Every structure is written in structure tokens, then in C-alpha cells.
């Protein structure tokens, strides 16, 4: 599975980090930065959490399973995973879970082979052990299934051997560096093999391999989780957790204030930030300033005026990114712009090469003049009778991005660029305009979902959408730099982590050197809960805010 997706049409905000700022005693302006402390909890009780979105289905490998909220509220609590993100020496890294008895053994080959040894204690909720047959069933269901959302990585699996019930050996046809991202969701072979998996799973399922079970999913209303009594790890403290679907932000905040909802994980849009800024009595909050969501400015490198390196650099120097971030998220205490195309989730693979791009009018002037431009009447740059005019595009209805565009427009006007806003629906933007290159400057988000680098999905020349490949591929910016593909391929295929780090940072530097794109900010995430709830609450970059729901409880 690729660990990088473009977030746009989904309009989702997701995948936050554990690097948190915590406030207590009332969430409000200027959150105090301090580590989140665990409040002692008692056994038993129930809570109700507001869920912004309802998943479309719970067949986690099918094309209908695109909702990140599905991952948060039903997938993560019930489906066993082989690796999970954890902080190692202050950086996120994939770490083996309690599904495994030991770290998998990797033989570089060729062919590359990975041997998984399964924890003898690992069982499904019906007490049947988790076995190598589950690994094989999951791998083949994804590799060969018809309605599969993402085959990345699985398409390289040639076979899964099962020498014994607790050993699975996976063989690959090519070196696959992101093998740790595979099996981010094991399925029970003994319950699903030979049956219609979609029919059995898509509307919820009664089995589990995690700390929770799905008791009910009332469509449009709620999802109820109850403890999986046969879970072999730490068992939940709460007797019941209800996720109530509340799509309207204002009503959700009111419900939180009045105690109908005990916790919220709001999308960091302007309305929710305003609510937090205005103060929430008796609420605790975690503001995560380092999520896996990178908001960026995406130049169309194949179309004028952004096919010129100097022009791209000039625009990059014309922007005060810190001011933009402060305006958007200052109320949450977040003011730092992003300086890498790697999000903090894959932070160890990225550098800070984009830090050079700070507001510098002298550099703008020098670059533009060097590129043959001159200030015309009205203070706008002109060249060969043409003004330095371009459009910026994003999806309509996203107030935060619309505000960002207005700030960009203002800042760039001051530097001598004329910007027109050209927004459209998410469907039109990502189905037509952007894949076909009908844009000049775009504003959207890239999301990392696992702490392994996968820049090749977004920046390799083979990922440029063309008529030939049916306009598929994430390199919408049409970036094609000398040496970049080589660096990206090394980062994607090397099994040596230090080589991957070096190659990823080289790619980051190449992108910054040519100003091929410009990261703006890492979208922060906010978790709010009332004082009734205790436990070590924090947000995980890949598994969301409810990754450790088993440790939540009612405060003593």
C-alpha cells in the first residue's frame, strides 16, 4: 500500500501526530504547549464521541473504504495490524505490533523474502488463533480481488508460504522497501475464505482482532463499540463507546458544550478554529501541530509562467509563509511553515531545504529582472507585453483554502504578481482540470499515512498524468527534474534505511533547488474532550485520535 495520497476530493483532514500541545481547564485561544498527561481512569462506563463523517462501508480493502473516519472508528479498533507508527528517538517509525512474536526477518534476495512469526497469543474474537493462513488470505484477496482500493505493494507479492500456522513467508518479484506497510489490516481467513467478503463485511462485522468489537452500526446515526473480551493485549477500560455522526460543525460544538458529546475531533476549518478560539468551558484539548497532512502550493511546471525556474523561485520569495500559517492557525498556537515535502510523519526522511524561501523582495526583483521581466504600470511585472498574471485553483467550499488564496493574492500583488482565483468543485478539479494540466497554481493537500517515504508516488516522472496513462498519477505538478527519478527510485526500493534517508533528502533538496513546488504548512489536528474522560489522550499520525481508545476511560 502506498503511504502517500492526494487529499482533495475527499475533503478529509486526518492522520495527526503524537507531538502535542495540551491544554486543560478550557480549550481556548493560545493553547499552552505541554505534554499530554494521563488522567487516572476507572473501569467501566460509556462515552459518546462526535464523528464528522460516516464511513461508506467497512470492507476495508474495497473501493468503498475511502473514508478516513472509517479507519478511525471501526478499522483501527477492530482489525489487527502488523506494524504501527511509534516514535523512535523522537522520529516516527514503523514498529512491530503484538500480532508478531518478533521483528520480521528480511532476506534481500533476489527474490526479496519477508518472514513473519506470529505471536502465539494472538487470537480473533472467536478465540481462533491468528495464523499464517490469515496473512495469505489477506495478501491474495488484495492482490487478486476485483473490487480493491489499493494494491500497492501487494501487486509485487508472488506468493505467501505458510510452513506452519504461526509462520508466513512473503516473496516479492522486485525489491519492495515499504514492505512494513503491508498487512496494515489482517482479515480472518477462517471466516471469509470462499465467501462473499464484501457482503459479510461492508455493513459492519461481529468479529474482531483488536481491543474492540462493533456492536452496531446504525446507518446515519451511530457506531457502537464494545470490548473484545478475547483480545490478547490490554483490554478496554470503557464498557461502551458510541460514535455519533454529527456533520454540522456548529451543532457538534454545541453538543460538545452541552455534554451530549464527550469528545470531538474537528476538521481544522475556520469555523472550528473560531469555536476553539472563543473558548470551550470544561474542555481539554490536544493540538497536534505536526500531522501527516501537507498543504502546499503546486506549480504546474509544464505550463507558463511556472515552467520557468526563476519565476517559480521569485513567487516563492514573494510569499510570507509564516504570516499565512499564523493567520490560519495562530489561534491554535501553530505558526511554523512546512520546510519539506515530507510531512512530520516521515520527518526523518526530509530536510529543511525550503526554509530558504522567506519573504525577500530584493530576491524577487533580481530573479524577475534576470528572467527578462520589468515592472510595468500598476507595479505588475511585464515581459514581452505580457503581465505576470496567473490563476490559483482549489476546490470551492473549503473556507480555509479560500482564505489562503486571498492572502496569497494580496502578498503576491505587493510583489508585482497579479493572481486570479479560479476555483471549482473537487470533482472537476481532480477529475478534469488538474490531471489534464489545466491549471497554473494549485492549492491542495498531500497526506502521508505511514512513517515510510513514498515521494515517488507524487514526484516521479512516471507519475505524471497523461492521456496515455488515462490521466492517472499523482504528479499533477508535472515535475521532471534531472536526477530526481533516480533519487526517488532509490528511496522506494532500497532496503537499507540510511540509504533511503539519504535519497529522500536528496529528492527534497532537488525539489527545493528548482522551486518545483512550495510547501505551505502542515495542517494541525485538534482533539477535544470533556473532563469526564481520562487516560493518555493523544493523536496518532496514521491511526487517528482513537488509536488508544482502549486506554480511555472515565476519570476517577
Amino acid at each position, binding site marked *: *500500500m*502506498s*503511504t*502517500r*495520497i*492526494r*487529499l*482533495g*476530493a*475527499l475533503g478529509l483532514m486526518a492522520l495527526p501526530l503524537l507531538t502535542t500541545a495540551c491544554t486543560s481547564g478550557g480549550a481556548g485561544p493560545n493553547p499552552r504547549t505541554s505534554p499530554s498527561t494521563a488522567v487516572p481512569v476507572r473501569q467501566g462506563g*460509556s462515552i*459518546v464521541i*462526535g464523528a464528522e463523517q*460516516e464511513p*461508506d*462501508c467497512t470492507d476495508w480493502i*474495497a*473501493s*468503498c473504504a*475511502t473514508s478516513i473516519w472509517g479507519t478511525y472508528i471501526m478499522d483501527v479498533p477492530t482489525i489487527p495490524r502488523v506494524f504501527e507508527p511509534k516514535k523512535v528517538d523522537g522520529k516516527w517509525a514503523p514498529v512491530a505490533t503484538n500480532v508478531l512474536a518478533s521483528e520480521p526477518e528480511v532476506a534481500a534476495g533476489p527474490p526479496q523474502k519477508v518472514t513473519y512469526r506470529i505471536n502465539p497469543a494472538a487470537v480473533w474474537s472467536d478465540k481462533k488463533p491468528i495464523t499464517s493462513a490469515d496473512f495469505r488470505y489477506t495478501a491474495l484477496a488484495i492482490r487478486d480481488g*476485483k*473490487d*480493491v*482500493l*489499493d*494494491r*500497492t505493494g501487494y501487486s509485487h507479492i508472488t506468493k505467501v508460504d505458510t510452513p506452519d500456522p504461526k509462520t508466513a513467508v512473503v516473496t516479492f518479484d522486485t525489491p519492495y522497501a515499504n514492505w512494513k506497510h503491508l498487512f496494515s489490516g489482517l482479515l480472518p481467513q477462517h471466516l471469509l475464505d470462499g465467501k462473499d467478503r*464484501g457482503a459479510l463485511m*461492508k*455493513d459492519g462485522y461481529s468479529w474482531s482482532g483488536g481491543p474492540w468489537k462493533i456492536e452496531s452500526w446504525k*446507518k*446515519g*446515526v*451511530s457506531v*457502537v463499540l464494545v470490548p473484545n473480551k478475547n483480545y490478547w493485549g490490554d483490554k478496554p477500560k470503557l464498557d461502551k463507546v*458510541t460514535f*455519533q*455522526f*454529527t*456533520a*454540522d460543525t*456548529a*451543532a457538534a460544538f*454545541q*453538543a460538545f*458544550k*452541552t*455534554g*451530549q*458529546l464527550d469528545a470531538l475531533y474537528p476538521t481544522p476549518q475556520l469555523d472550528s478554529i473560531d469555536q476553539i478560539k472563543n473558548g470551550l468551558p470544561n474542555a481539554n484539548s490536544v493540538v497536534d501541530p505536526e500531522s501527516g497532512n501537507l498543504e502546499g502550493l503546486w506549480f504546474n511546471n509544464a505550463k507558463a509562467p511556472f515552467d520557468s525556474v526563476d519565476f517559480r523561485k521569485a513567487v516563492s520569495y514573494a510569499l510570507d509563509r509564516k504570516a499565512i500559517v499564523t493567520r490560519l492557525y495562530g489561534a491554535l498556537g501553530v505558526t511554523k511553515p512546512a520546510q519539506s515535502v515530507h510531512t512530520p510523519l516521515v520527518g526523518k526522511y526530509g530536510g529543511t531545504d525550503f526554509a530558504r524561501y522567506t519573504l525577500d523582495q530584493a530576491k524577487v526583483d533580481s530573479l524577475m529582472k534576470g528572467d527578462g521581466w520589468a515592472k510595468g504600470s500598476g507595479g505588475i511585472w511585464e515581459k514581452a507585453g505580457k503581465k505576470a498574471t496567473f490563476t490559483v485553483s482549489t476546490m470551492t467550499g473549503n473556507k480555509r483554502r479560500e482564505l489562503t488564496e486571498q492572502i496569497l493574492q494580496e502578498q503576491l500583488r505587493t510583489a508585482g504578481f497579479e493572481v486570479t482565483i479560479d476555483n471549482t468543485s*473537487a*470533482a472537476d478539479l*481532480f*477529475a478534469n482540470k488538474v490531471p489534464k494540466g489545466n491549471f497554473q497554481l494549485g492549492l491542495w493537500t498531500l497526506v502521508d499515512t505511514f512513517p515510510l517515504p513514498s515521494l515517488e*508516488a507524487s514526484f516521479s516522472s512516471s507519475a505524471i498524468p497523461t492521456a496515455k*496513462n*488515462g490521466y*492517472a*498519477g*499523482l504528479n499533477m505538478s508535472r515535475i521532471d527534474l534531472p536526477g530526481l527519478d533516480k533519487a526517488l527510485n532509490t528511496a522506494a526500493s532500497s532496503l537499507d534505511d540510511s540509504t533511503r534517508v539519504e535519497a529522500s533528502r536528496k529528492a527534497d533538496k532537488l525539489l527545493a533547488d528548482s522551486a518545483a513546488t512550495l510547501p505551505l504548512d502542515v495542517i494541525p489536528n485538534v482533539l477535544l474532550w470533556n473532563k469526564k474522560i481520562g487516560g493518555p489522550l493523544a493523536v496518532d499520525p496514521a491511526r487517528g485520535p482513537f488509536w488508544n481508545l482502549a486506554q480511555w476511560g472515565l476519570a476517577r
Partner: protein
Amino acid sequence: MFTYIARRLLYSIPVVFVASFLLFWAVRTVFDPLAKLRGGPDPGAIARVTERLGLDRSIPEQYWRWLASFATGDWGVSSRTTGPVLRLILPALGTTLQLIVWGVLLAAVIALAVGVYSAVRQYSAGDLAFTGLSYLGIAMPPFWLGLILIQFLAAWPQELLGLTDPPLYFVGLHSPDGGGPLDYLRHLVLPVLTLTIGLVASWSRFTRATMLEALTSEYVRTARAKGVPRRRIVVRHALRTALGPFVSVTAVDAGLLFGGLVVTEQIFAIQGMGRLFLDSLLAGDVFVLVPWTLVIAVVVIVFNLLADLAYAVLDPRVRLR
């Protein structure tokens, strides 16, 4: 009467299907059922889903395939949830029906009372006050009205009285742990009020106008000249005449409401027909939208028919042919 009903229903069939095709065409042209997959990690998913849903065929062909299935009683499968469409529509219809029944009943009673009072006491202080309130009710958008009601009737009373729970709930129609009739009532009040205020505002104005027309008609004047008491004139003569158009309007409006409660359902987290429409539209789920439209069309036709029948019953001058 039977011939009239049969003819009306027969006329409606082609209209409904033309409308369903136009909607199918419009949604397939404007919205993208694959939007959620675009920009995903595996571009191959788009081709796989395109093939599975038959999206590579022409729109008329897609529509025809859907219609052929529909004619055999197969309502199809949602492209968004991959589940049966019927299992999405029926619960949503039931939920919306609850809101409409309570909202329309309450609104009808209040609107009639206010409208009759305003007509009988034309230009009095009460009439002017109700007129002002009606315009205010018409002017208030439901999303704003809903939030105001939440603040005034739930959040502030809870705060002022120091209650652990708000007196009225505003998330869903039931508490997560179920609850009895009182719990249901506490959930129902705010969304129904949001719906009712708008309806009362417009229906009371309509009642006032029809009542005024009736009160100035010749047969009322004749009744007055005969010395019939005022109360009887208002209730027996004028109100009965005004009731025909009133019932007609309320029935038509009630039918239209089945698909028109998007905002109210969104604010109060109620999964009715309005929210189902919105979710399906945003996902480009034409396989839900078209049956949804057919259901709404049938509801509107039936309610229109009921309106005509009620009109004929209430006004002896009307004959259906």
C-alpha cells in the same frame, strides 16, 4: 373519481421517467462517482471500479441498464456504499416521515389559528404582530434558525439552570442508549420546531388571505344579513371554504418537504431523505439519486392527488373529472 385518479397516475408515469433520465444524465455529467478514488495511491482502482459499475458505457446505456433492473424490482446497489439502495432509502424515508408528520400537524394547527385570527381581526395589533412574525419566520434560513433554537432552548437553559443535560437534545432522534418516549420527544422538539416555524410563517399568511377572501364573499354577506352569528359565519362558512385551498397547499408542501429537509437534517444529525440526497449527490452516487427521485416524485404525486381529493371533499363546488 376512480377514473380521475387512474388518469392522473397514468399521466405521471412518463413525467417521472423523463425526470429520472434527466437527473441520471445531469448527475453522471456533473458529478464523479470515482472522485474519492482520484488521487488515491493506486490509479488502477479507477479502472477496476469503472468496469464494475459499467461507467465506461454511454449514459443512455447506463440508464437503460439501471431501468431494466429497476423494472424487475431490483433497486440496484449504491456506488458509494456498495450496499442495496433500498436499505438506504427506506430507513431515510421513515425518519423524514416522522419529522414531517409532527411538523406539518403542528404547523397546520398553529397556522390555521393564526391565519383565522389575523383575518377576523384584520389590521388589529395582533394581526400586525403576527404579520411581522410571519415575515420574520419566512426570512429566517433554517440553518440559522436551527442554531438559534439550539442556543435558546437547549444550551442556555442548561447553563442557567445548571443541568447536567440540556432540556432538549439536538443530535439525532434518539439517545445512544435508546431511551423511551420522553427521550424521543426531547430529541424531536428542536428539529420539528425548526421545520414548523417556517411552515407556520407561510401557511398563516396563506390562511389569512383565503379567509379574507371568504369573509368578503357574497354568501358570507348573505349569511350576515340573515343574522347568522359571527362565530358560525367564521367557522361554518368562511373557514370551510378557506380549508380547501389550505389543505391543498399543505399537502403539496408536505410532499415537497420529503426531499427538502437537507439543512434541518444536517444540523440535527438526522439521517433522513434530505441528508441521503446530499451524501449521494456529493459522492456522485447516481444509483441512489435516481431511485430517490422516483420515490420523491411518487410521494409528491400522491400528496398532490390527496390535495385535489381533499379540496373536492371540502368544497362542494369542486368536481373531479
